[in-house]
């Protein structure tokens, strides 16, 4: 989850109230963010992904100031019309069809403000913008731009400009291949014949979203006073929200916000609109969900504490809030304002009968029999290495494989239990013998009859490892379990590459195979570098359970 670094001084000025470290610690955590670091100069907080509007000093401080009571209710934003426009070409339809734009004026940029602007832009790119796929944001010094601006798709070879931090003019292809930022985001333009580009009235390239700005027209410096902001992507509402998050941040830096006209092929729009939207909230629903007995007045004050206004049973929601999909989202904010620490626990009187899973009970009974034999239960992973399941066991199996495991060693789901137990034996060779182990675990097999096309069953593996481990001893274990369950079974000679020929058997109940028992072959033991004989049992508990019930 994203973290942001707040300049403590800037933050405190914006909040308008100075809190002790202890209080800050508590309040930051109780507003629903995780405090990572609280320093003299910097505060590092983790912001949950539902609050992208809090990814800047200004946004965070705005939410925080009402929460701690330094301010109250809805923040007001004035937007005037710049009369400037952006013309959007219809050929963007399958490329990057939408943009939302604005102008912000009279900002006295310094190092700190530039850092803040870059931080919010980057954080929004990564989170709400899904690494620029959903939203790409560009900010440009207004004085270098001749209005109006056009946004259209062009042949990559015709898009030629000096990219930000590049040393020469390049065409779009070169940028994607040679410029570091170009390489990082090139995949976002995969498969397109034409690439999106913003140009000013004189044809100067502003940027090629979502890749990079031009070095000339796309760089904010300490001399910049006024800026042009655009967000581009595929969903106009999403872009408008992102734009609102940026412009309200700039507003709180002291900027004057001006709207622009967006000339889409089919209609004109104007952005940004910073008027709050309204949502109905039902007081009885609030109290029902939270178990509270809030009155209208308390509800109002809770909502104001979270930066909303409440009028005529309606909540006015700030234009930068992207997380209000349903009135429950407002109810959570009411709960935060009320204070999670203030909810006392109540144990309701709801009568229900507890019921354990029957198979789990069956499995536990069998596992407890093995305790009586003096064996140790192990706990190994379902995710394993194919080689251990197959090559090492002298077998060819069709295993269920994983697509993207971080560790090469763990590349698939296990097909049977004995290899997992042999792994345990191999890692305990310096320990006292005999080593008699068992475990019941999931095994996985491809099966198109299942919903997931995978059959998942529970199997019991038992290994006896020591000088006198042999077929008789493991057969005795099988007999013991099946006799306790009072099932009739036969034990038939079979072949299995992991076992010694002539010392392996299949146990069947009513013709259905439920278990293998035998002595593990010396080749397999050698593959595991084991120096003691092993007799092993693999019993399909899922099948056995089906037969018994």
């Amino acid at each position, binding site marked *: 989850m994203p973290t942001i670094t707040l300049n403590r001084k800037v933050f405190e000025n914006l909040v308008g109230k100075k809190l002790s470290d202890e209080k800050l610690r508590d309040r930051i955590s109780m*507003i*629903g963010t995780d405090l990572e670091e609280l320093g003299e100069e910097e505060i590092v907080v983790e912001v949950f992904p*539902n609050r992208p509007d809090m990814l800047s000093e200004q946004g965070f401080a705005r939410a925080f100031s009402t929460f701690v009571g330094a301010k109250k209710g809805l923040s007001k934003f004035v937007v005037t019309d710049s009369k400037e426009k952006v013309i959007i070409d219809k050929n963007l339809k399958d490329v990057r069809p939408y943009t939302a734009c604005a102008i912000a004026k009279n900002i006295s940029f310094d190092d700190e403000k530039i850092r803040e602007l870059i931080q919010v832009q980057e954080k929004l790119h990564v*989170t709400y913008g899904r690494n620029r*796929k959903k939203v790409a944001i560009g900010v440009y010094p207004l004085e270098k731009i001749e209005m109006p601006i056009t946004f259209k798709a062009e042949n990559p070879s015709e898009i030629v400009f000096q990219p930000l931090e590049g040393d020469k003019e390049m065409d779009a292809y070169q940028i994607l291949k040679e410029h570091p930022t170009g390489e990082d985001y090139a995949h976002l333009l995969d498969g397109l014949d034409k690439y999106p580009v913003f140009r000013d009235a004189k044809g100067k390239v502003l940027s090629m979203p979502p890749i990079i700005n031009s070095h000339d027209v796309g760089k904010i410096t300490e001399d910049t006073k006024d800026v042009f902001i655009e967000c581009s992507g595929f*969903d106009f*509402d*999403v872009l408008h929200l992102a734009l609102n998050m940026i412009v309200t941040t700039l507003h709180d830096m002291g900027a004057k916000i001006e709207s622009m006209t967006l000339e889409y092929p089919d209609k004109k729009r104007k952005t940004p609109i910073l008027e709050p939207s309204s949502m109905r909230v039902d007081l009885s629903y609030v109290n029902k969900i939270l*178990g509270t007995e809030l009155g209208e007045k308390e509800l109002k004050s809770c909502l104001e504490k979270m930066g909303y206004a409440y009028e005529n049973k309606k909540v006015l929601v700030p234009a930068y809030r992207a997380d209000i*999909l*349903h009135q*429950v989202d407002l109810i*959570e904010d009411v*709960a*935060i304002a009320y204070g*999670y*620490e203030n909810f*006392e*626990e*109540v*144990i*309701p009187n*709801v009568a*229900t009968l*507890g*019921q*354990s*899973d029957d*198979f*789990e009970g069956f499995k*536990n009974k069998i*596992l407890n029999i093995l*305790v009586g034999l003096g064996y*140790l*239960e*192990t*706990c*190994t992973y*379902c*995710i394993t290495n194919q080689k251990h399941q197959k090559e090492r066991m002298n077998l060819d199996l069709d295993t*269920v*494989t*994983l*697509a*993207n*495991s*971080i*560790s090469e060693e763990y590349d698939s789901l296990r097909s049977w239990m004995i290899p997992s137990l042999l792994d*345990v034996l191999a890692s*305990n060779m310096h320990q*006292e013998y005999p*080593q*008699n182990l068992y475990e019941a675990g*999931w095994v996985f097999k491809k099966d*198109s009859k299942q*919903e*997931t*096309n*995978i059959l*998942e069953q529970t199997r019991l593996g038992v290994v006896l490892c020591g000088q006198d481990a042999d077929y008789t001893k493991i057969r005795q274990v099988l007999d013991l379990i099946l006799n306790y369950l009072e099932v009739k079974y036969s034990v038939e000679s079979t072949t299995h590459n992991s076992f010694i020929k002539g010392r392996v058997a299949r146990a069947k109940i009513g013709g259905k195979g439920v278990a293998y028992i035998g002595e593990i072959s010396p080749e397999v033991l050698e593959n595991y570098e084991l120096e003691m004989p092993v007799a092993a049992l693999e019993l399909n508990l899922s099948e056995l359970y089906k037969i018994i019930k």
Partner: protein
Amino acid sequence: MSAEKILKTLHPLERKTLPFLKQGILFEDLVKISGLKDVEVMRALQWLNNKKALEIREEISEVLNLDKNGFEYKKKGLPEKKFLKEIKNKALTIQELERKGLSREEINGCIGVLKQKAAVDVKKDKTLTFSITNFGRVFLEKTSLEEKLLSKKFPVNMSGLEDEERFAADNLLRRKGILKKEKIKKKTVELSSLGLKLVKNSSKIGDVSDRLTPAMLKTGSWKKKSFREYDVSINVPKISSGRRHFVNKAINYMKSIWLEMGFTEMKGSIVQSGFWNLDTLFVPQDHPARAMQDTFYVKEPKNAKIPEWYKKVKDVHENGADTGSTGWGGKWSKEEASENMLRTHTTGLSAMYLDKIRSGEYEMPAKFFSVNKVFRNEALDWKHLFEFNQVEGIVIDPNANLKHLKGYLKEFFGKMGFTDIRMRPGHFPYTEPSVEVDVYNPKKKEWIELGGAGIFRPEVTKTLIGIEVPVLAWGLGMERIIVDYFGFKDLRDLYNNKLDLLRNMKEWLK
């Protein structure tokens, strides 16, 4: 314990040793006269030492002992004498000397010694030729200091050497393989007053039996016997038993808590479609949790079948459908929902059980739980596992609210031994309000994060159950509780299956 009492508890080895003990007796001598083995005498002495009957004094002394060549020279004389004897009448070349049975190495050693004593003349031509001098003739007749030393009985105590002998010893030690210095331990027994008393009374022990045998019982001969009394306070060798794995014991305990509270156990597959693991829970398809790095996707078979009614889920994602929500917007993809993955939480099971309420398999109010495996695609390290357990619970109750959520959790954690719990705001795409749950560890005096909880969003409940009902839900980390209980520092210790750990681990006593 009195001497009398001690005499009754003596081990047979102690009894056999005791009569031979004398003040200051050497260990070796004791072994000889008792007729017991070294180790047996040693054990008896140690036990008697534990009883404060005696001290075993150890003295370390340095001795000279014969080395490999030393044995030979002691018998046949030193090689320089043989050398001189051979050239006494006739000068010889080095090759001729070799033929007389001196090794090249010995010859080289001799040259050094003999030249120092001016006993030989060496002529260097094509080869070396040696002839004896007058000094050499005198030397040949004399018994040298080295020879005198060699003639002593070995080992020779270093501290008892005369000056001349020490000089000779130094000379011989410088030469290869004749003498060596060794440190030897001399053990003597020093009896305490208790020990002296025991020795004095050792004859009174009489005939005591060590074991009660079946034969004694059959014949009744036990009636005439007395049995050795044991020192019951001494330690005995450890044994170990068969055991369930401690993690499974903890899991079974947690399950029993939910059962007592009237919860029904849920079950479901490990591999799930994105549909059940994420989409039914209103996790947007472009949510970062869906990104490759967190989730194990299945390569083969890649896809699952998803229910016919998937369109309900599609609608709620795209526009909120009839839930009163705006939805996430954008396009929802069936293909993406069909992808197989290892479940990243057991909350997918909860979604399946909400569907079972709709289908009538279960009725409201209902409470469900599971304690089961979940998977995250992370590299194993001391604080990350890719396979671990989650404690999942849902309460489907038309009257449920946030205070009840805290109530259920407080009850569970209370039974786990944590008396204090705390709720903090959190965020999960499928709950609103969302809660982070902390419990207080009074020993470490700190809050530990143990999981997430909340009330399922209407987008989840309305879609799955068909009507909007508050559903309390939680997914708690289990491993941290177990690690804390057993005092591990490394999460991997839970599943590394070290047999000594499994054998000796303390019991899960909750």
